[in-house]
């Protein structure tokens, strides 16, 4: 029976040879993860289940990233719960501050997820690892607690929507613009329960960092997972990175899809999501270039080296507009160090940017750059629902690192050609 890559990975982790969308299956989990806000509840559930030990000390990752370095007493207590649990249960992949970073940045960076893996995380942006050709989906803390105990979970096999991007990318258009465009097309419920499979010749030329960006935001369309078939770009990324055994799977040529959407990439301009929804997407040329109080570059969506390089190229020799705060957070200590070595951090500091320690920061209104009443921010993050980054009467616009860097200099939303 012909199958999509998502169906193949699910089948390989269940006791079935082949699957159909709609099938309810039980699967083995290769990697289960949680962060400092979802782990405490998951740990409580694990303890209520009364198991003496976790199912596998090497298949669980616990990452403090949302409210660290500890934002306040309550957050410190949550991290303490996670730390003590990790030590008690000998969790191999627990990251202390100093080696920790944003979960969806450090796990692939450290080779903890490989093509063909089945990853379940207590965080909605767990879908990020689909960029590697893994099946990766978000769940809540109770599900994660049960998985830590048993190593298994139940899933319904999703229908797949295939998106075929063909054509040359325009100037300043990258992965972030492609996914924003897709969200504008599908809407926040256009892919509920579905697998989003990204393909086409544009995609085959896309770097891994930009694939992470796209897979990361699959959940904003309601998708269960986002996925790229692994190819030479994937193999090159994985070279020497992991001791785990990878499985390079592809969708069968005649696999059945719920629908196939063809997108002519040459028609896509730089995109911006307006408040208050990630599907409220317009081309930059269609919007009013609002004045900005803050610009943020970072997060699990765009906190990687390529994103910082892009920002640095645009900010070099330029200054952030007076009255606009530019905050930049590298997604991991490794990325931060490389950025220093490449002179990126110096360039960013010279332009007037504030550099933060690797963490989620202001993305979800945690810390490191919260908005006051009436303030407007442009960011490389993934959600802009009401109150997302601070005061309920603040506004968040979403865009690529290139647009964000240029906008920081302009003091309003714009692109690098306007500099």
């Amino acid at each position, binding site marked *: 029976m012909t199958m999509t890559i998502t169906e193949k990975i699910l089948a390989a982790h269940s006791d079935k040879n082949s699957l159909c969308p709609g099938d309810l299956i039980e699967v083995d989990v290769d990697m289960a993860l949680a962060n400092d806000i979802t782990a405490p509840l998951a740990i409580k559930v694990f303890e209520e*289940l009364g198991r003496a030990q976790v199912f596998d000390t090497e298949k669980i990752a616990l990452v403090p990233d949302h409210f660290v370095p500890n934002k306040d007493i309550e957050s410190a207590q*949550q991290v303490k719960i996670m730390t003590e649990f990790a030590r008690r249960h000998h969790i191999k992949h627990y990251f202390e501050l100093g080696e920790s970073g944003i979960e969806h940045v450090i796990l692939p960076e450290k080779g903890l997820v490989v093509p063909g893996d089945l990853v379940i995380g207590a965080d909605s942006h767990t879908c990020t690892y689909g960029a590697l050709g893994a099946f990766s989906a978000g769940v809540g803390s109770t599900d994660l607690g049960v998985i830590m105990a048993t190593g298994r979970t139940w899933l319904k096999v999703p229908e797949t929507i295939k998106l075929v991007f063909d054509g040359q990318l325009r100037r300043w258009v990258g992965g972030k613009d492609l996914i924003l465009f897709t969200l504008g097309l599908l809407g926040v419920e256009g892919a*509920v329960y579905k697998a989003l499979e990204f393909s086409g010749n544009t995609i085959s030329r896309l770097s891994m960092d930009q694939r992470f960006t796209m897979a990361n935001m699959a959940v904003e369309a309601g998708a269960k997972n986002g996925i790229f078939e692994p190819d030479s770009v994937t193999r090159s990324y994985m070279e020497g990175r992991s001791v785990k055994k990878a499985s390079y799977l592809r969708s069968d040529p005649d696999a059945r899809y719920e629908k196939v959407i063809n997108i002519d990439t040459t028609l896509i301009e730089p995109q911006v999501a307006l408040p208050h929804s990630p599907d409220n997407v317009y081309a930059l040329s269609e919007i009013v270039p609002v004045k900005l109080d803050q610009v943020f570059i970072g997060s699990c969506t765009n906190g990687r080296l390529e994103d910082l390089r892009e920002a640095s190229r645009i900010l070099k020799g330029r200054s952030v507009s007076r009255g606009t705060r530019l905050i930049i957070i590298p997604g991991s200590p490794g990325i931060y160090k490389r950025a220093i070595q490449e002179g990126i951090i110096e360039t960013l500091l010279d332009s007037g940017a504030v550099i933060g320690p690797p963490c989620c920061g202001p993305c979800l209104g945690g810390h490191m750059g919260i908005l006051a009443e009436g303030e407007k921010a442009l960011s490389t993050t993934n959600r802009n*629902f009401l*109150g997302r980054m601070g005061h309920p009467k603040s506004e968040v616009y979403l865009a690529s690192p290139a647009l964000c860097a240029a906008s920081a200099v302009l003091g309003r939303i714009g692109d690098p050609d306007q500099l």
Partner: protein
Amino acid sequence: MKFKGRVWKFGHHVDTDLIIPARFLNVSELGVLAKNCFADLRPNFAKDVEPGDIIVAGTNFGCGSSREHAPLAIKAAGISLIIADSFARIFYRNAFNIGLPILEMENAGDSFKEGDLLKVDLMTGEIQCLNNKRKFSAKPIPPFMQEIISAGGVVNHIRGKEAR
């Protein structure tokens, strides 16, 4: 399982940042989550909800984050049931896992209004609006999920099965 309660009406795409803003995610205590449920959208909600009240909403209820704090806050605030056109997938799983009953009903958002009094049968999906005597049909939830709800959540359900 049968319910009777007063309707709190919401729109489409009610996201998890509205249900429980991130600044309250540094705690897991139900009392704190309950007090801050819908803090930015409807500041009086937590104060005025009475145990047994029902939330009615449009499509894609609970979209956004995986935070289990969202259904936990709603349940702790006193809501006994959510009826919506549709639910976001992580919220759907989380609600069952913590024992918060939910029902999917086409045009739920258009069928009821704020303050309506409803009688609901979770097993059959039958909903009766006591204000106008009209009857509606929601999609009944599958039997194994009814067991999870009756047990009060998936942890109790698993422990109950292990005990037998």
